[in-house]
């Protein structure tokens, strides 16, 4: 069982955990990404996420399929939040369940890393000082700052 979804409402991690339960599995690993109160030295008040959903869902499903095959996990899923988020909100959830713990940890780790780098999802930070900006985008117009992880990817 695998799924990649976007959620426009708060992510219900407890409900997702139940979907990962499987009698053939002895291990379950989950990752939750949370909204934190600072980034690159600036105090963050809230976040907005936006995605190009049709492509992100396709690419997200590819990430899950690759990791599931590589590690042989039974269940693997990811849900990413869209919209306006407050400090402490869950921005992304990844869950993996497999017969043994190691594969669950590894699959979970691979999925979150790939999701961050490959999917067309954007984050706008709103700062305590009233300013705001799209993460990784605002200084791109300046010379010699083109080191974006997504550009290196395939």
């Amino acid at each position: 069982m695998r799924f990649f979804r976007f959620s426009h409402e708060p992510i219900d991690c407890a409900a997702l955990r139940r979907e990962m339960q499987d009698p053939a599995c002895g291990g379950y690993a989950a990752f939750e990404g949370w909204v934190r109160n600072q980034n690159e030295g600036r105090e963050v008040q809230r976040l907005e996420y936006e995605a190009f959903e049709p492509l992100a869902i396709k690419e997200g499903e590819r990430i899950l399929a690759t990791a599931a095959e590589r590690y042989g996990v039974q269940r693997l899923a990811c849900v990413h939040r869209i919209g306006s988020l407050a400090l402490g909100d869950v921005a992304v959830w990844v869950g993996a369940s497999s017969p043994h713990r190691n594969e669950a940890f590894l699959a979970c780790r691979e999925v979150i890393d790939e999701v961050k780098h490959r999917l067309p999802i954007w984050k706008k930070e709103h700062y305590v000082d009233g300013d705001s900006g799209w993460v990784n985008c605002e200084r791109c117009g300046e010379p010699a700052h083109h080191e974006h992880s997504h550009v290196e990817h395939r």
Partner: protein
Amino acid sequence: MSPSASDKNRDGASAPLYGLVLAGGRSTRMGQDKAALKYHGASQVDWAMKLVAPYVERAFLSVRSDQAHDPVRSQHEQIVDTREDLGPIAGILAAQARFPDAAWLVLACDLPFLDAATLEYLLRTRRPERLATAFRSSHDGLPEPLCAIYEPASRKPLIDHVESGKQCPRKFLIQSDVELLDEPNPRALDNVNTPQEHGDALGALGAQPAPRNGVQPAQQSGNLEITVQYFALLREQARRRDEPVSTRAQTPAELYEELRARHSFTLPASALRVAVNSEFAEWSRPLSKGDVVVFIPPVAGG
């Protein structure tokens, strides 16, 4: 995750999926029957029935009782409205009454830009545990009720909606537990209501001269008609979510330079990726008429 037997009957995932093409409209603004209009070398009704067929177990045409025998409609298996003057919601109710255990892929018959990719996306991202799965309009962000999947569990609330004096299916979706999706192609659900829109649609589909023996008609103006969608920083700088573009650019690289000048984008192309028709693409890929292009600013998920 172990539904009881009674839950199981209501579970959209185990329900058969049937198709319903709505052709019961009165075409008042068009001045002639929309169902009979031709776009792809076939009447709109024949074309819509053919488009939906591969994805459903059975497909039906939704008609009013006085339309059942007209030549355009009579060649298809029909479900006749049982309530008059309710609009499209009458068609959905009649279909659910006849096959209450089915989930219904409902399509209006006046969507000449609808494509298989949009239907496939709807099916792939469908959430059968919700009452319906529908697209969010690229124009106003509200649900599009007439290219959507209605699960069996939506029948009772739909009846209640009508009983309470409401007949707008869009309002029903706004107020219900439904899954809303962004359209992979923002033009796919543009509908056609007037002779002017019909003419525009024919033009956009390149439908006037029938293609002759595979010979490409010479490009009259040299301009390509495509759609560009914007996200994040580019959306803010362009001050729009999408726009139709008529361009001489042959590749996404040339197109971006043209649009960068028009909208004063701060990001250089070297910081972006590009997608064409919802897949990552090369910057040098030739563009074709009708392509949907998205420039992807540096991403920051997670």
